[in-house]
């Protein structure tokens, strides 16, 4: 299942540039996924988006609504915030590059 595109998208094309499956494209100035069934959930586009305009969503067959996982990408770390279906939130500070 692909990312959901929210209103922050300005059609910059960073997701189109990076998607390993050639699935993201900018249509009429906004990001869109051409085949949600073909997404691998790798989150490359979500990490690449400069405006947090993309949100990852699991197929409903696998996981219930409305859990969220949001990365805040910084130079050498990602701050991940995960909310479960009961509203419980967890935050992780993951180091991604050495100092």
């Amino acid at each position: 299942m692909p990312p959901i595109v929210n209103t922050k998208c300005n059609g910059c094309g960073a997701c189109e540039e990076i998607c390993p499956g050639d699935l993201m494209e900018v249509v009429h100035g906004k990001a869109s996924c051409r085949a949600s069934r073909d997404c691998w959930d790798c989150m490359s586009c979500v990490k690449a988006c400069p405006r947090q305009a993309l949100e990852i969503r699991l197929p409903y067959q696998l996981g219930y609504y409305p859990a969220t996982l949001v990365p805040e990408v910084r130079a050498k770390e990602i701050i991940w915030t995960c909310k479960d279906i009961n509203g419980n939130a967890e935050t992780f500070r993951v180091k991604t590059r050495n100092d």
Partner: protein
Amino acid sequence: MAKTILPASLDQVEEVTLETDILIIGAGNAGCFAAIEAKKVNPDLQVMLMEKAHIDRSGCLAAGMDAINTYMKKGRTVDDFVRWSRSQAGGIIREDLTISMAEHLNQPIEEWEKWGMPIKYEDDGEEYKSRGKWDITVSGSEMKPILAEKTREAGCKVLNRVVATNYILDGNRVIGAFGFGVRDGKMYIVKAKSILVATGGAAGIYKPYQADGYDSHHQLWYCPFNVGTGYAMGIRAGAEMTTFEMRWCATRTKDFNGPIDTIAVGYKTPMINGKGEKILEKRYAHLGGDAAPRFIRANVPMEEWRDGRGPCYVDTTGMTESQVRDMKYDYLNERPTFVLFLAARGQDIQKEPIEIYGSDPYIVGGHTASGYWVNVNRSTTLEGLYACGDVAGGTPNKFVGGCAAEGMIAAQAAAKSCEHFSSLAAISADLIATEKNRIYAPIFRYKNTGDGVRPGEMEERLQRLMDEYAGGVHQFFRMNRESLQYALRHLQILRDQVKYLISEDFHELMEVHGVIDRIDVAEVLVHHLLYREETRWPGWQTRTDYPEKDDSKFDCFVNSRLNRTTGVVELFTRAYEQMVPGDRLKP
């Protein structure tokens, strides 16, 4: 990005002809390490990578990785590694290849750390943090962008979004590769002195069980964009292939179909069945219990289900709160959406264990031994062509470190062989015209007739056929001669139907060539499964009509080659050569 306008006729398709010393097909882990190594051997060499996606996030490392599973720790020897790998693979590995790989295992990992990838250390600060016999923990979320940066810095040229379609042959010699731009629609003709194939393995040959669900078609463990193109190009060119029948069917997390070592190895959680029994300890003690060969462990959940003892789990209920957090941290580095999956189930894994199940089978030479038959410098049976990573056969248990190491080994030989060529061979106009027509015909078929078969339809037909008749997860990985012959008959029909494939745009054209490649891989795979009339690796290869192992006939490699004159896939065996003494089934 402005959409590319489709050509009105074949002669409107622009041709781009490029020349380089070394062409690497596939800019994943193995391909990038090969590229950097080739530049180290000789900085004057021109190195070009042909990549169907974007190098920053292509291949198996797109989402990251949380461990390196083959790192030689202090005190371990190459012989130790060979004995372990051999026992995990049921005694069938190429020992010569495994030795040369083991000698190079640590270098790429240490370079990666130097380049910026964080690796955890043990508390005394001396050694990398251990996660099992050969495993270390890494924070590899950004390991692919880091590797891509270094590949560019080394001066390699990257052709992003170019899909390789076939080798360019001059007799038995590979002199380049054809491809097309999935974004620009152009035909690429790349001539080179040495060619390295590093396209990864093949996903999507079999139907994954999640495909029943809306939007879950690509909920796979292995990268779904690795469609077996490197195998298929080799098969079509008459390269010798080995051990396709040793499929990689794995224990994965149920539904999410994600990696399990993070939990099972990283946090030593036992596999339990529906009755709460520790399966390996209770039922597989005679095969080594928790240290049973990899195929036994991989097959455990499906065997338990079949015998009425499912569902199965990894028992996470004994984990501490801080272990659960550490485990989620690890997953965020490899498959972040598994953390989302648990949240979307509202699952507290200290109370409710994580369910496990079998995966769809993959052909992947970094885990099992399927792929090109290569010699110790990773040259294939086609002159001028080298193979490394998941596409190269004979060496199971490479994983990330081994694929990188193999890229380096292949590049050293490929760089040296360039010295023998002062100029590039000419390519006949006929050859180019034939391939051009083969690549683009589905676009014009769609335009001119508007009717035919969409690649997605054919892909699903192939996957269901293989699942039901060639030992997919819905058949508990089991098969017999009659079911395999059925599969073969229908694969031949599918092959005849390729002429009806249509595509509306260049993305769909990529899917067309993906399904054509998968059919070629599937056909060779079924021939291999038919030929090995025994059961050597239950789960990976279970023949219900030959349920026992038969060392008198099959303690050897099963190899194949497409006879390009007759079109027949010819099967034969090659002897096992033991170099490291000892019982091949014991680590």
